[in-house]
């Protein structure tokens, strides 16, 4: 087996086009990774600058009523993982800025895609674009004639007569092409590791990326070699594997993506907001009007402090009501956003299942996931920013209630020492170990495909046709 692989490599290296293409690929991959890192660092810098700017504004707030400060609010700017330089996933089309303020959970805004004309349908030229589209295609180009050329030149008969097992020959040829794919992949990852500020987390993520792409390349090279062995001519082999490649990469992801959204539709923004507004006003179960709730809270606090009117309370009841309303709003939000989250998760799971007939879908999902640029990471950012919003507003409402003001005193203010005491929003990208369960289906699909293609090579190559 090793001998065949070595021999294959010797033949490959003799071809000038192969050598030039390899040099071109290595240069392109290196430049692409370096450009990706540079663009990402630049974006991180701008993001940090924006976050610091907002923090400065917050810390330099003039003395004001805490509730006014809650309306003034804060902002969270979406951070980009270092591996965004490899695969930007959904980052180009999702918003980057979210306002965190009292009473309302805002949407994330200002996506890059909305700031200009449409530029490309397949995303920026990042390493993932080359690794997902170009390298597999090159592997196909290398593999489609690997057996059929031997057959056309009648060399195959000689090889078989020399006692080489046909399946071993096919497998070895497939492996030699796969190794080439792995080589390009590891060099790309190496460049990323050297120049991309690697941490233990990114190393783990990169290893997982190598595994995912490695399996996919194995599937592609095995399948292309299988077709080469199966069909009489290299042209038939090429046209068949190209048809599959087109269906996998261009056709099926879109068709399935659209279908999934039709199976599990999300509510429109109008419906979502109207229901949220109504429930916040009427009560979460429709039997709990705002005024009734306010009355209940009022009686509760009058009893706690043993006074007969709000004026006699030693605290500011307005702050209490604000916080209660906030918490009520949070329940409403959790219910509806939770519902959307469930729909999104169902959509994702159904999409992931398409990996059983399209391994490219699994690869794309894994690539985005391991680079930290998929929907799960995005939702995590939204969740964390919402958690921060709640902490921030609660701190402001508590200060409003217990900071020394009396009920109805809206002119009461706190100075910026208090505002400074509230910690700034800081977001850490989640560890991949916490998210791994989301990607098991994708990994499973890739493994399933690798087994299928191995079985195909081992048992289904049409020996009779070739000899």
């Amino acid at each position, binding site marked *: 087996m090793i001998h065949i692989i070595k021999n294959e490599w010797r033949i490959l290296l003799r071809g000038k086009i192969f050598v030039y293409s390899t040099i071109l690929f290595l240069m392109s991959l290196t430049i692409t990774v370096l450009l990706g890192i540079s663009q990402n660092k630049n974006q991180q810098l701008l993001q940090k600058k924006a976050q610091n700017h907002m923090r400065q504004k917050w810390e330099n707030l003039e003395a004001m009523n805490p509730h006014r400060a809650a309306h003034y609010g804060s902002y969270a700017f979406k951070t980009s993982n270092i591996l965004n330089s490899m695969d930007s996933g959904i980052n180009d089309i999702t918003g980057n800025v979210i306002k965190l303020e009292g009473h309302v959970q805002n949407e994330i805004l*200002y*996506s890059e895609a909305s700031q200009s*004309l449409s530029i490309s*349908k397949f995303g920026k030229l990042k390493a993932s674009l080359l690794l997902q589209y170009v390298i597999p295609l090159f592997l196909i180009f290398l593999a489609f004639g690997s057996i059929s050329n031997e057959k056309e030149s009648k060399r195959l008969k000689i090889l078989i007569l020399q006692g080489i097992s046909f399946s071993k020959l096919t497998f070895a040829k497939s492996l030699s092409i796969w190794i080439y794919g792995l080589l390009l992949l590891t060099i790309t990852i190496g460049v990323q590791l050297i120049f991309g500020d690697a941490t233990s987390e990114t190393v783990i993520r990169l290893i997982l990326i190598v595994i995912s792409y490695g399996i996919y390349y194995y599937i592609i090279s095995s399948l292309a070699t299988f077709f080469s062995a199966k069909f009489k001519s290299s042209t038939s082999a090429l046209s068949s594997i190209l*048809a599959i490649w087109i269906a996998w990469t261009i056709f099926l992801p879109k068709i399935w993506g659209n279908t999934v959204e039709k199976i599990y539709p999300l509510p429109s923004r109008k419906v979502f907001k109207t229901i949220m507004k109504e429930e916040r006003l009427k009560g979460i179960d429709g039997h709990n009007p705002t005024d009734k709730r306010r009355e209940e809270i009022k009686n509760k606090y009058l009893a706690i402090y043993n006074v007969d009117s709000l004026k006699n309370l030693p605290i500011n009841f307005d702050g209490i009501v604000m916080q209660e309303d906030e918490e009520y709003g949070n329940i409403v939000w959790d219910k509806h956003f939770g519902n959307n989250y469930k729909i999104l998760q169902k959509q994702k799971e159904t*999409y992931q299942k398409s990996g059983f007939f399209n391994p490219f879908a699994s690869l794309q999902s894994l690539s985005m996931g391991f680079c930290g640029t998929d929907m799960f990471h995005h939702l995590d950012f939204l969740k964390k920013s919402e958690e921060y919003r709640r902490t921030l507003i609660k701190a402001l409402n508590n200060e409003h209630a217990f900071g020394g003001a009396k009920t109805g005193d809206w002119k009461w203010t706190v100075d910026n020492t208090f505002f400074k005491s509230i910690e700034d929003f800081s977001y850490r990208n989640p560890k991949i170990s916490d998210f791994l369960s989301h990607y098991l289906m994708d990994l499973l699909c890739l493994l399933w495909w690798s087994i299928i293609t191995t079985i195909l090579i081992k048992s289904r190559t049409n020996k009779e046709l070739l000899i």
Partner: protein
Amino acid sequence: MIQYIQIIRSEYIHLIRSPFKIISLSLFIFALLYSCQNGYELFKKHNIEIESIISQNEKNIDEMLAQYEDIVKGEQKKLRRDPTIPYWAIWNTPSYAFKYPSNMMVFSLGQAEQYGYYKKVTNWSTTFDSDTAEEIANPERLAIGTLDFNFVLIYLLPILIIILLFNVGGLEKDLKFEKLIFLNNITKPRWLFIRFLFYFLVINILLFKLMFIYAFATGIFQNESFDFLNLLLITFLYIFFWFVIFYFINYFGKNSSDQALKMISTWILLSIIIPGSIHQITSIKYPVNYMIDYIDVDRDMSNDIFELPTDTVRIQLLKAFPFLEKTYFSDDINIDKSVINKSISGLVNIENKKISSVIESSNEEKNKFIRSLYLINPILAFQNKINSIARNDYYSYLTYRKHIQSIIDKKIEIILKDTWNNITVDSKRYAYYVKNFK
């Protein structure tokens, strides 16, 4: 001539005897129908949503008019937001800005999924409010993109052409009887041309036929015939563009595999690598805008204006809105603070417009850069042209933002005029407001 017809006939036989090509063609037709249907459904969805907002608005208007009747009858309790005050009456005048979908949306969704298409407009609105952002959608699905006609035409059609053409002239080379053909008194360019012409006609007829069916179904010919003709022309040119490239590839190709490799590599280069590179370069040259300046104006400057003394704001308002000089309160130095407070949105709007214009200019710079590279990025040029015909490109949404701004301006103007003229709103005046914002 007979010879040409014979070539076309034999090409037809070759096509129908090739299951691989027939399956590909059928899949392409399926993709075309599916994509047009996607566009049509989104078109319908937008219209339904807009209709439902309009009908809700009608209900709100009726409720408001009933309130005015109650006021006249003396049956209406005093409200916190008194509808007889112009500010609150206008606040309660439903005014939405809609981006009505073009019927041509069937053929391109363009950037429709990156922006909102309806917006509630108040005197405090801006063109970058949260409801101008995209609808709730699965971000991964958005990133993958929708299979619309534009995508099928721009990206899938060249692949179909590759499948149909890769062995035209190549098969003869594979089987080594190419030279026999030229013994039949025909030159290679002409022979290849006629064979290409057959597929060129097949594709054009197929596409145009389907396009006409959907155009009729969506009523495009009622008022968008010119746009449709424009689309037909672009489609024709685009198909021609690929046929020219592939003609030369086949002319100089060594065999079918060689031709297929070169064709698919060209497709990858033109459709994925070049646009991707330009996207990346654009992103480095013009990084994503975090809208800090806008946020500062929207938040801090409005705060600062609120902090100013009443008289200072009054002077600023008179300067910014000269028409106020002829109003009831124009000379009142001790003008009521509530009048000033109700007018502040006018000053904030001016600041918002200034910063919006800066943001739009920086976006325009980015767009200029993108357009300047159309020559080396022709696929994107075609794609954006189709988006523009379907009114779903950046500029269509810029027009929509301008429309939103015009409603904001109108709201502010009426608020200022009526507030400063101390007008009491009744049902007649309210109807005037409704008419203005319909």
